[in-house]
């Protein structure tokens, strides 16, 4: 479980996040949604301590994360897996080396065991046999999947994905959503996903937080989102033509 409490962040006096609180539960896929530029990525970066908020707390299973000693932070960081928006694979390393990297840096596992673990993760994301390729030689969707494989290689308790399916075709998007959902259920991970994609919202949203201009204006789940009476959320949800028609 991850709790965020009263997170506020401004860049050069311009408020980007205004007093955001919420709870992301274990074994659920929680989504943070909102229009472009509303501060979703900044919120994620605050939770990861890549950006320091002016105010607020982040608790990982009741353990305070921000403003702690580096050693304590490192303990929690070992339990995190992060998929960045562009995959953030290391260009100079092969797919296999990329996925093995956290094991090399953070564990004392013997080589053969590492190799097995990497093969397992590759197979888990449906990319067996691509381990020898370089990141520049694989497609965008494959990069995302390699990014997921790297994020789960350490058996994380917390998984974060920044727009896991932006820029992908609908079929691949659905596959990636299902993959994340499956992994979350299987290993009882606390998963936080940032997305614009209404498809994902409706299919995997166990908990949904809607941000509008830096404020949390609504929270709920994929059942209640279609019947909310909040104007901003309505605009966001029904900007999708198919859904608009459905509503009539």
């Amino acid at each position, binding site marked *: 479980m991850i709790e965020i409490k009263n997170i506020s962040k401004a860049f050069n006096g311009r408020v980007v996040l205004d007093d955001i609180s919420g709870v992301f539960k274990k074994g659920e896929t929680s989504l943070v949604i909102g229009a472009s530029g509303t501060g979703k990525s900044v919120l994620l*970066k605050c939770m*990861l301590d*890549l950006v320091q908020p002016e105010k607020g707390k982040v608790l990982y299973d009741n353990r305070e994360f921000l403003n702690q000693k*580096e050693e304590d*932070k*490192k303990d929690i*960081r*070992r339990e*995190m897996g*992060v998929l*960045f*928006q*562009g995959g*953030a*694979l*290391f*260009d100079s390393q092969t797919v296999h080396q990329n996925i093995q*990297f*956290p094991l*090399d*840096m*953070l564990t004392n596992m013997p080589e053969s065991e590492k190799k097995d673990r990497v093969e397992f993760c590759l197979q888990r994301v449906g990319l067996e046999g691509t381990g020898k390729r370089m990141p520049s030689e694989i497609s965008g969707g494959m990069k995302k999947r390699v990014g997921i494989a790297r994020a789960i290689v350490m058996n994380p308790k917390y998984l974060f994905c920044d727009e896991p399916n932006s820029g992908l075709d609908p079929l691949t998007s659905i596959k990636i959503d299902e993959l994340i959902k499956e992994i979350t259920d299987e290993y009882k991970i606390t998963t936080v996903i940032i997305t614009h994609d209404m498809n994902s919202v409706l299919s995997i949203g166990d908990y949904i937080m809607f941000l509008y201009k830096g404020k949390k204006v609504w929270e709920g789940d994929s059942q209640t989102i279609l019947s909310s009476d909040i104007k901003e959320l309505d605009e966001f949800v029904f900007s999708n033509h198919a859904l608009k028609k459905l509503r009539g």
Partner: protein
Amino acid sequence: MFSIIGKFFIFIGSLFIRRESSRVYWKRFIDECVSIGIGSVNIISIVALFIGAVVCVQTYANLVSPIIPKYIVSNIVRDMTLLELSSTFMCVVLAGKVGSNIAGELGTMRITEQIDALEVMGINSASYLVLPKVLAAIFTFPLLAILSGFLGIMGGYLAGTLSGILTPEQYIYGIRFSFIPFNVTIAIIKSIVFGFLIATISAYKGFNTKGGALEVGQASTAAVTNSCIAVLIADYLLAELLT
């Protein structure tokens, strides 16, 4: 200005805190030595050979007086090469090659969130990425300086003897004439200092890139120009200190 220098020193300090295991650094260090050191041998060799040759020919052309013995030509080639060309000039060339390479690589890693990816794993990205580069520069630059000094003198020898300016015996006599071994030490000290400056300044510029591909290009340019200026200022200070 002062705040930038302050941030630069904080950056250098951050390279030494929260380090990873030495096994990790050793591998990165060897990789960087290959890319910084071996990767620069070609350009350094070509530059050194030709500069040595040009100094030889130009010195001769400007020393027309019959009272000055010919071996003075190679004597001047030697001192110029050791004191300035094999260290300062070589490092200005390397600032272009190594500096832009370091800044470009780190800048790209920054904007594609690869540095963030390292940070969330709990790795001190500055130390992991930059320290091996700095150590590799400090280790390989003196070796390159020695190579460049040798090839500079060789270049002068080839140009001088092949064009009949002076005989091989005269050239070698001039090389040995009133030789001060400490000049070699100066060249090595200088190349170590310049290597440190180029690697840290370029890494600082690349590491703190914000924005997109355009800013990576700007960071590379800034890395090269700032490194060159730092090298030349340090050259002056070292000249005052060491001679």
